[in-house]
């Protein structure tokens, strides 16, 4: 909670500071970084404990909640933001068009995301969602290279607002059906109504789910994804793909697990169709892309599909499925952050485009960067010895536990297809002789950005191998255990 306040304060201060002519962009970047770091430290102080409470009940009236669950998500979001700012350092400096306000907006969007996972009431959730989204709309437009940037920003703005309206309408329906919008109480009311007609609630919840599906870019709401990711600058794409998705899942999981638990099986069939369509269509989109950035955008749709497999399994294998979502979010977050981050580092100079073909023979010129990029690709593809593999293991196990073996097989087929488009990059980087001079513009490995990316690569391998031999060091077990702990905190009465 203090962390939340700290980020909000930082954002406002930064907004005021950036109006001063003496403050330069580098200062703003450092300020944002420090704010995020303080927030993360404050969050980690209560990480891994089991608790839940409503902060300042007189003032907020149960609109916000603080529990192990939200703290866990806070930690992920804040680390995501931190990593984004670390990775972006080089990019922001190389591309001169980033203004000082960018960092203020960045902090505001982080604040919105954190607020979202703390939200314990539908309207405060909506406000949080809009804070995060509005900041992102502007952040997407913050670049000058891509001629599609306005289109991307505008497309996301229009469609996102439309999705937001669904959320509002849904909340209205839920209120009409239950007489409350406070999480927890909604669930209790719903329990007492069991056996009676709850179609208003179902309609309302379906509309809310539609917003959710839009934001995580599941089928049939995926069309904006590729254009928007492609149109925005790379660090922003990374931030959206990895961090924003975490926050959205954070809220919707809480809603589904706690409140709509009694009526959750209503959507099972719908979700199965959505999952299969998402996996199929996402894989198809990813295969046909020539640009790496667009491929990563399309593959993020496929990863949404995997996450939804776990999401639908929650009904029958609650604990393992829910913690598998949380774990997979971390796994995806690390791999996507690394991939986007490294590509943004390589492409910081505008002469380098980022299509597959551009990476022909890359490994012979820049062996370390190629190795890191390979690690990220392997993790995204879910090859053993990376964290992506363990994440997939949890998700598929949860699905089979819930009786959805068929969905696990679908996921496996999508994984198999994904091997093609991820390995294609590795093959291009390693198996061709280096091309003439295209890589002169690539900066050498110096500074904070490559260091962060290297650490992410190590974390990915560590997460995949775990703590077999080195005791007392957090590894695979630690992450999944804390995920389970945070899941448990949802059910403390």
């Amino acid at each position, binding site marked *: 909670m203090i962390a939340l306040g700290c980020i909000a304060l930082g954002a406002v201060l930064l907004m005021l500071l950036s109006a001063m002519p003496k403050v330069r962009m580098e200062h703003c970047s450092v300020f944002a970084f420090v704010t995020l770091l303080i927030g993360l430290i404050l969050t980690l102080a209560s990480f891994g404990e089991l608790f839940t409470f409503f902060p300042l009940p007189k003032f907020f009236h149960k609109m916000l909640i603080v529990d192990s669950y939200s703290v866990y998500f806070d930690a992920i979001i804040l680390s995501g933001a931190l990593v984004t700012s670390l990775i972006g350092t080089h990019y922001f400096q190389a591309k001169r068009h980033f203004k000082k306000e960018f960092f203020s907006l960045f902090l505001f969007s982080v604040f919105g995301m954190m607020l979202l996972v703390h939200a314990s009431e539908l309207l405060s959730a909506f406000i949080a969602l809009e804070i995060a989204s509005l900041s992102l709309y502007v952040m997407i437009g913050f670049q000058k290279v891509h001629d599609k940037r306005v289109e991307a920003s505008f497309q996301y703005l229009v469609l996102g607002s439309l999705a937001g309206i669904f959320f509002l309408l849904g909340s209205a329906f839920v209120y009409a059906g239950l007489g409350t919008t406070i999480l927890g109480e909604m669930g209790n009311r719903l329990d007492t109504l069991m056996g009676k007609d709850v179609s208003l609630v179902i309609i309302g919840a379906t509309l809310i789910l539609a917003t959710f599906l839009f934001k995580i870019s599941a089928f049939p709401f995926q069309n904006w994804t590729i254009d928007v990711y492609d149109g925005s600058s790379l660090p922003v794409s990374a931030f959206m793909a990895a961090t924003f998705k975490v926050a959205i899942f954070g809220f919707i999981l809480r809603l589904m697990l706690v409140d709509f638990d009694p009526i959750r099986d209503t959507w099972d069939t719908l979700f199965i169709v959505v999952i299969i369509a998402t996996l199929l269509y996402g894989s198809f989109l990813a295969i046909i892309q020539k640009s790496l950035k667009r491929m990563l955008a399309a593959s993020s749709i496929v990863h949404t599909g995997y996450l939804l497999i776990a999401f639908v399994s929650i009904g029958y294998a609650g604990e393992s499925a829910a913690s598998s979502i949380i774990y997979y979010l971390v796994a995806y977050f690390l791999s996507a952050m690394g991939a986007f981050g490294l590509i943004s580092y390589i492409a910081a100079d505008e002469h380098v485009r980022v299509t597959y073909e551009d990476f022909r023979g890359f490994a012979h010129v820049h062996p370390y960067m190629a190795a890191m990029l390979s690690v990220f690709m*392997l993790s995204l593809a879910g*090859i*053993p*010895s990376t964290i992506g*593999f*363990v994440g997939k*293991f949890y998700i*598929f*196990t949860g699905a*089979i*536990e819930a009786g959805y*073996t068929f969905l*696990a*097989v679908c996921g*496996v*087929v999508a*994984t*198999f297809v994904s*091997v*093609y488009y991820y*390995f*294609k990059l*590795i*093959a291009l980087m*390693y*198996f*061709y002789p280096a091309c003439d001079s295209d890589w002169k513009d690539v900066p050498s490995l110096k500074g904070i950005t490559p260091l962060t990316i290297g650490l992410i690569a190590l974390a990915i391998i560590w997460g995949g191998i*775990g*703590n*077999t*031999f080195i005791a007392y060091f957090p590894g*695979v*077990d630690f992450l*999944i*255990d804390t995920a*389970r702990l945070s899941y448990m905190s949802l059910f403390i009465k």
Partner: protein
Amino acid sequence: MGILSWIIFLPMAVACVLLVLPVGAKATRNGAFGVSLIIFALAFYVHEHFVPSAQMQFYEQYDWIKSYGIAYRVGVDGFSLIVLMLIATLLPSAYLLLWHNERSKSYWISMLFIQSGISGTLFSLDLFLFYFFWEAMLLPVFMIIGLFGSGNRVFSTLKITVYTIMGSLFMFVSILYLGVSHYYEFGAWSFALSDLVRISSLTQAQEMFLFAGFMIAFAIKIPLFPFHSWLLETYSTSPTGGVFLLSSIMAKLGVYALVRFTMPLFPDLFVAYARFFIGLGIFGLIYFGIAAIVQDNIKKMLAYSSASHLGLITAGVFSLNIQGLTGSAFLIVAHAIATGGLFLLVGVMQRHLGIRPLSALGGIAKRAPWFSVYFAIMLFCTVGIPGTNGFVAELLIVLGIFHYNPYFGVLAALTVLVAASYMFWVFQKAILVQSGNDVSHMRDLSFHEIVGLFPLAFLIVAMGVYPDFFLAKITPTLHYYLDTILHVGANA
């Protein structure tokens, strides 16, 4: 850490160190060779201290992902022991033969990683761990073919990768399903083989699907008949070391995993579908044999002949009696030595003469006597001339199949002879007869290579003359498989 962990992780650790250190290709090669010698010593130690019984020995267990009951469980029994000895003997020899071939550092690093992966797969007694090594092993293979192959290597690399990953992913689902079934039946998570074999709640249909999941993965790796389309391209584009690993080690691991995992997990299905798989094996024997005859490239021909023998090995495994199973275990070793040796020799020849069709060879015996002698020994073993271990193995398998079904037995006996006899023709044409082709660039084997191949030739003869010595340690395990796991009795 126990001795098995050392065998698994030493190559990997050395590879990581060498990768970071600024050393050249030569130093890396020497390091890799040194490691392979150490591994041989360790394996020999394991062999000497292995008590001939069906028990798992040198067992080690460390927790890994506790919440899912996944642990690092490794152990060795008679069957894995013989494969371990095989690998430990083959690799130093292979390194000596590749000594001048590959001048790149990453080649040797990949070899070291592959060695770790192989040992890990071999010792795993936890299905999650097994899958981990099985799949991770693919990455260095991917690198070695893609980086050092010839021809259309990128395409064939992607093809073998996608192909094998497809197979293993089905196996992955099967493994997960078994884990979940164990959880529902016993209330606790576990992926240990010894726990999963106790599952009794599966219906016939479920078992069928799971069995199929495992079989597809293994059939692709071996390869069995309809899953072989990666074989030709991969073998002809791979560098010598890659082909050697694929044919004499990875393919054998497929058969090994078949016995180690599918047999105890699905004993009923194993027995019920034995006829089908023997048929498939014999069909592969004939089909690949014919395919081998028509090849004009010696590498492609060896690729098919290798697949043909693997069909025979598979048929022997499914013959469900001690002769067939022992024969298969024996042929795994014999064939690995012989084909491995042949591929390495062909690699030496290619280094001198370049890649040539068979019709452009001839008269090599005169220029390279050592080469020809070794070539002949390996060849005799492949064909199964009495006095070589290939003869003993093939005889046992044919006997085993004969026990299972006389018609199959007759068919196998006939085709073993026919399908292998083309090798003589190749030997005659490529090595013995003067054909007027220019082979003046051919050099005889160097000292390294002569020393490297000696253990292989020695084993071929020793195992052929005195097989009992080599069978003593594995027979109890094989009896255990048949009597206790399959309940079919030793001589049924």
